[in-house]
């Protein structure tokens, strides 16, 4: 019975949506995305397949496609701010990050971590496992557990495809508008068109709920990795003490909920669930000290 209703609904959607698409465009974003996601990608996919077999699958990108997108974004970000020239630092951050990422559902990704030459306080994640933190944020950290926590938050964004979802939305929107209905040359060009100008995507805000989710997962991944669980709250405490008017936190505060709100949400989610975790490590001694 239910199945018949579903079938009927889907049939109705299939009939109604293609016409609705054009009208909807000026209206709510979400509706368009939803309808294109359920319908027109399939038709356009098959259409594209007949033309060229290497169509970029935005609806359900493969692992390789996801990495390709992330690499493009990471490359742009590194174009804005290069890596800190300190091999030992970069290796250390990769060791910590990889160990934490191992505790996630995406241990299969070839995770890459980097510290960039920016005194801003911020960190970024791109699809496929590219994670970057600024020297300014690294400077604020006191031990390895806190570093693990910051990286965990970013890893969570990758695991839950938070940025990928934003890109998919804009891509599908373009397709709905008929702008990108056809294949546009090489995959890289298609990716570039969707990720926009430079590393613009890194300056975009995610849903608040995505940030809170990344905080919750960050605490859990840090805990799973054997660290003391309170690294993330501690870092949020520190960042919360930075004046709102300081330019170093301008972008971070613009794109994230205020640290105080994040702390309150974490508190609500954690409750007494961490009471039994007792021998988490902080590893203050092993924490790599910046050379300057």
């Amino acid at each position, binding site marked *: 019975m239910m199945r018949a209703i579903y079938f009927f609904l889907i049939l109705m959607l299939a009939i109604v949506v293609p016409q609705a698409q054009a009208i909807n465009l000026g209206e709510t974003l979400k509706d368009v995305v939803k309808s294109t996601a359920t319908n027109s990608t399939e038709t356009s996919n098959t259409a594209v397949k007949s033309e060229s077999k290497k169509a970029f699958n935005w609806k359900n990108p493969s692992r390789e496609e996801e990495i390709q997108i992330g690499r493009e974004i990471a*490359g*742009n*970000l*590194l*174009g*804005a*701010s*290069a*890596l800190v020239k300190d*091999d030992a630092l970069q290796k250390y*951050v*990769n*060791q910590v*990050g*990889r*160990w934490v*990422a*191992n505790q996630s559902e995406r*241990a299969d990704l*070839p*995770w*890459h*971590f980097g510290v960039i030459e*920016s*005194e*801003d306080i911020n960190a970024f994640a791109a699809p496929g496992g590219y994670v*970057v933190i*600024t020297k300014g944020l690294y*400077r604020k950290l006191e031990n*390895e557990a806190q570093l693990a926590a910051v990286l965990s938050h970013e890893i969570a964004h990758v695991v839950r495809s938070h940025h990928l979802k934003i890109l998919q939305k804009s891509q599908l929107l373009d397709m709905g508008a008929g702008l990108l209905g056809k294949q546009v040359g090489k995959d890289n060009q298609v990716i570039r068109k969707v990720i926009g*100008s*430079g*590393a*613009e995507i*890194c300056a975009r805000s995610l849903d608040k*709920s995505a940030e809170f*989710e990344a905080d*919750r*997962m960050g605490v859990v991944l840090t*805990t*799973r*990795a*054997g660290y003391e669980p*309170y690294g993330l*709250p501690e870092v949020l405490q520190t960042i919360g*003490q930075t*004046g709102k008017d300081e*330019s170093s936190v301008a972008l971070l505060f613009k794109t994230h909920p205020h640290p*105080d709100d994040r702390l309150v*949400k*974490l*508190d609500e*989610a*954690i409750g*007494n669930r*961490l*009471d039994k*975790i007792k021998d988490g*490590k902080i590893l203050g001694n092993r924490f790599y000290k910046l050379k*300057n």
Partner: protein
Amino acid sequence: MKKYKILLLLSAALFLPLVSLAAETGSALKADVIRAEPYADAKKTGAVARGEKLQIIGKKNAWLNVKTAKVSGWVRLLSVKRGTAGGGNQVKGVLDVASGRAGTGKVVATTGVRGLSEEDLKNAKFNEAEVKKMESYTQTSKQAQQFAKNGGLKAVKFDYLPAEQKGGEK
């Protein structure tokens, strides 16, 4: 001469912990119970109101040892915001200067050099050499396991936390 040195070291050793103890102040992010011990079922000794100032004396697992105007005891770490309510932690600032930790960071931040503004991000150009470099530091899962082992880190089973449920009890 030697005696003098030892005395100096001794007084430094005595003085330093005092400084760090006195340094931490905070305020309650929400109303919560203060307990005699760092356990959920320990005896209640008092309470803090939201926004109430307190001193942070110590920390144990999920708990902070605090002192308010009225009582001292243990309160949940996540109920407390460290630092004074309005802006920076002055004592920490002084310590940072003394230890040379301030300097570079602060100067750069105020002059805005090497920042990463929205504009910078938008205008960024793809840098193949830097991505390659970033990828060159990549660690394998096995290497990371060894690294964890060296630090005495052991993987723990722990479920993801559910999103907070609006409207209280589930």
